[in-house]
């Protein structure tokens, strides 16, 4: 460290950045693999396991994550109270009803190796069920992690004029009964 400019340069290099991730229609397990890299700072060229260079990640729309196939019905989350007979299996859809953040949180937690650093890394993850994030969090954000999949467009959420203007190959006959 030679002078005051070098000192400021170092602060600039090791600044913590806040990233935003929109989990809408995203696979939580695939997203977790990406998010954990940002939490640990693995995306930086200066990464070193001993340097404290991890970033914050704010995940919004956790309520609207998507799972593949039968995962909502088949995936079970195990919890044990510690007492005899205290084990419970909760299905993914049940857990998501009780706490919409839990599946995302567990996915990120499991994507990392179980070492002493994991709990501290997890503290840099901020999860929100919907799009509205507290002002003191949103004002820190300066970067966006791109989504892994395109968000599919829903017909009932499309604007009326866009639906009308969409190209059609043929019209249903007037006497056709939609069931």
């Amino acid at each position, binding site marked *: 460290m030679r002078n005051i400019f070098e000192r400021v340069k170092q602060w*600039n*290099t090791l600044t913590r950045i806040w990233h935003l991730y929109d989990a809408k229609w995203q696979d939580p397990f695939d997203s977790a693999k990406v998010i954990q890299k940002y939490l640990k700072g693995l995306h930086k060229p200066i990464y070193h396991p001993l340097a404290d260079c991890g970033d914050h990640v704010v995940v919004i729309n956790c309520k609207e994550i998507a799972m593949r196939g039968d995962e909502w019905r088949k995936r079970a989350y195990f919890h044990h109270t510690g007492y005899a007979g205290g084990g419970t299996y909760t299905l993914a859809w049940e857990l998501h009803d009780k706490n919409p953040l839990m599946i995302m949180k567990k996915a990120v937690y499991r994507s990392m190796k179980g070492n002493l650093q994991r709990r501290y890394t997890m503290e840099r993850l901020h999860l929100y069920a919907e799009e509205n994030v507290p002002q003191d969090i949103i004002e820190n954000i300066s970067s966006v992690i*791109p989504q892994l999949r395109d968000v599919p467009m829903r017909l009932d959420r499309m604007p009326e004029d866009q639906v009308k203007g969409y190209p059609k190959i043929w019209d249903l006959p007037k006497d056709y009964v939609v069931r």
Partner: protein
Amino acid sequence: MSNSHLLLLSGFPRAPLQNGIGRYVPQLKRMTIKFCKSSGDSKGTREFIESKLVDFAKENPGTVVYVKPRRHRAPCVQAEYLNGEEHHISLHNMSLEETTKWINLLPMRSGRPTNLRLRKYWHTDSPSIQGVWSPFTNRDPALNLAQFPMEEFSKRKNLTKTATEIILERWQEQKEKDSTAPVQEKTTS
């Protein structure tokens, strides 16, 4: 890297006082060979002193060489360096060749401790001229004024068009062609 290495002294590979650039200062200042005149475990050391020590001292004029006989004790060589470090090497039961090899190693060392964890395998006095990386280098300037959350930044970057987009584009082209075609007919007829 295992965790036991964290307790090790760490540092960068460096030459003391930029040794070897312009001039060379031998770092070994004093060497003491301790041996026994009678016992068998000092045989190689005694042979070295008889046959090679004078040549060694002539080759290294910057080094003071001491020879210290002591009765019935194992032979060793003690090396003192300019940085104040002291290295000991046991010459117990060594042949002449082995002794020569170990003693010739001493003037080549800089005197830094041998159990050093190298933080990097290289060192430079002039770091990058293009500047140190920071999270803000090569960043999209559109992010500076962005209000979050913003959908357009979250979107996956598609390098190729999707099938839906291609069909919509073709349909748009066709619509334009249809709207312009009757006008052309009118002008020609």
